[in-house]
């Protein structure tokens, strides 16, 4: 079953979004301005078609600015395409940023609830998972303290702990695998393996090619908003490393 289908998706951004010349100059040169605004665009994604099967783990690699994060943003539904269609079936956990909405004045517990609800759980669902989240984080002793007293590693651990308890059908991951100390990282990988066994679909953006090789069934290599190559991890990664 196909759970993610992108069909000839284009996403373009104008280069200038603000009036750089000031209002008067802009008004005096209005035709120029409009012409330059419509001409000066670049394609973040240009005619991309990708399908992902249920339970598949797809890695996305490519240089900075090649369109990887835009692709994840489209699947997550935070941005829309210029043309083409994006279809996604199932509950998506977009881990584009750990601890979305975390507030540094609130305690760890309060942030778990805030983040969990923002990521799509009801308060009751968060309460039901609270114990598991706390245990996974290994931060019991600090959870009554405000987040500003945490180290950045602890914040990331807390964010990741909520993230892996969202029970998603589709997990979108943007460069957030390597958090915490080696001990905690091992626990993260265990948890991701568990997700894979349960048939969760993965889309992972990462520059850590060893992670991609370890987790993914298929790799898509993006360059300049186009698909350069896709296929078995070893082959695509080898070609990418040579380029």
């Amino acid at each position, binding site marked *: 079953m196909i759970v993610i289908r992108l069909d000839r998706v284009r996403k373009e*951004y104008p280069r200038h*979004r*603000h009036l750089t010349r000031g209002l008067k100059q802009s008004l005096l040169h209005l035709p120029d301005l409009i012409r330059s605004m419509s001409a000066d665009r670049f394609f973040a994604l240009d005619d991309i078609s990708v399908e992902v099967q249920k339970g598949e783990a797809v890695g996305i690699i490519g240089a900075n600015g090649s369109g990887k994060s835009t692709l994840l*943003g*489209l699947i*997550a*539904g*935070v*941005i*829309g*395409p*210029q*043309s*083409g*269609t*994006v*279809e*996604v*079936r*199932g*509950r*998506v956990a*977009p881990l*584009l*940023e750990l601890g*979305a*909405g975390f*507030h540094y*004045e*609130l305690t760890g517990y*309060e942030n778990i*609830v*805030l983040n969990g*609800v*923002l*990521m*799509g759980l*009801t*308060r009751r669902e968060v309460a039901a998972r609270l114990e598991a989240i706390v245990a996974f984080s290994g931060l019991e002793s600090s959870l009554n303290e*405000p987040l500003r007293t945490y180290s950045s590693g602890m914040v990331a651990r807390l964010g990741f702990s909520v993230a892996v308890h969202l029970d998603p059908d589709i997990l979108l991951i943007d460069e957030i695998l390597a958090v915490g100390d080696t001990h905690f990282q091992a626990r993260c990988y265990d948890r991701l393996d568990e997700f894979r066994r349960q048939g969760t679909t993965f889309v992972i953006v990462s520059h850590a090619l060893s992670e991609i090789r370890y987790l993914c069934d298929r790799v898509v290599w993006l360059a300049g908003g186009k698909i350069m190559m896709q296929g078995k991890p070893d082959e695509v990664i080898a070609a990418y490393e040579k380029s």
Partner: protein
Amino acid sequence: MATQAVVTPSARPLAYLVDLILVLVQKDMKVRYKSSWLGYAWSVANPLLFTVVYYIALGVFLRFEIPGYPYPLFLIAGQFPWQWLASSIGGGPMAFINNASLIKKVRFPRNIIIVSTVLGDAIHFLLTIPVTLLVLLWYGRTPSWSWIPGIPLLVLAQFLTVYGAALAVASVNVFVRDLERLVALFIQALFFLTPVIYSVHVVPVQYHVWIKLNPVAPLIRAWQKLLLDGYLDPLLVGAAYLSAVACLVVGTLVYRALSPRFAELV
């Protein structure tokens, strides 16, 4: 050109949206009160301070009077609702921009941000009603039973008005950042053109049409009548709801048109 994105995320039942709003309002409240000692006092202090200033400048120095009411009492009745209106609409332009990371990284209905900030301001307003009550008693007047239906009715009208206006300016400000300054100026001007520090009765009759055209004047006047006289004026309430619906419709249309591109621009 087919530009429609068919995204089917998990269904968002009402219960979830309620939870989302609740959690965001709670966050605002906790953050606002957590590291300040005086907490509640601050949200009352600001309008009270200005009430005192207006009373000294206008009531004492310029010897301005409102027939039928002690001037400080009259000021209080309009000042608190105005404070809510000004802080919700004034905070509107930055509401989406301040939540840029959420808008870029999490999928949820973005207007919920506005719902929760306006709701937070509404709660602050409700917390000021005891102060109004105290001032009323101080001047030997009593509250009226009409407050019981009247306050919720006017709170709803004001919520819709302010939500619609804030939603519109928040959405537009993502694209045109100058709006923030314009809104601040506009609110200041509107304050003096709305009967908050004076009543309609002292305005010469030939100018009444301008007050009638002011979209927030019926609301503020309805508050004054309710809080001072215990009278829920059906004409003013009707007019307030008319402009509430207008604000809501405009705000929603603007938001619908602009929100698909928020994540690219905030």
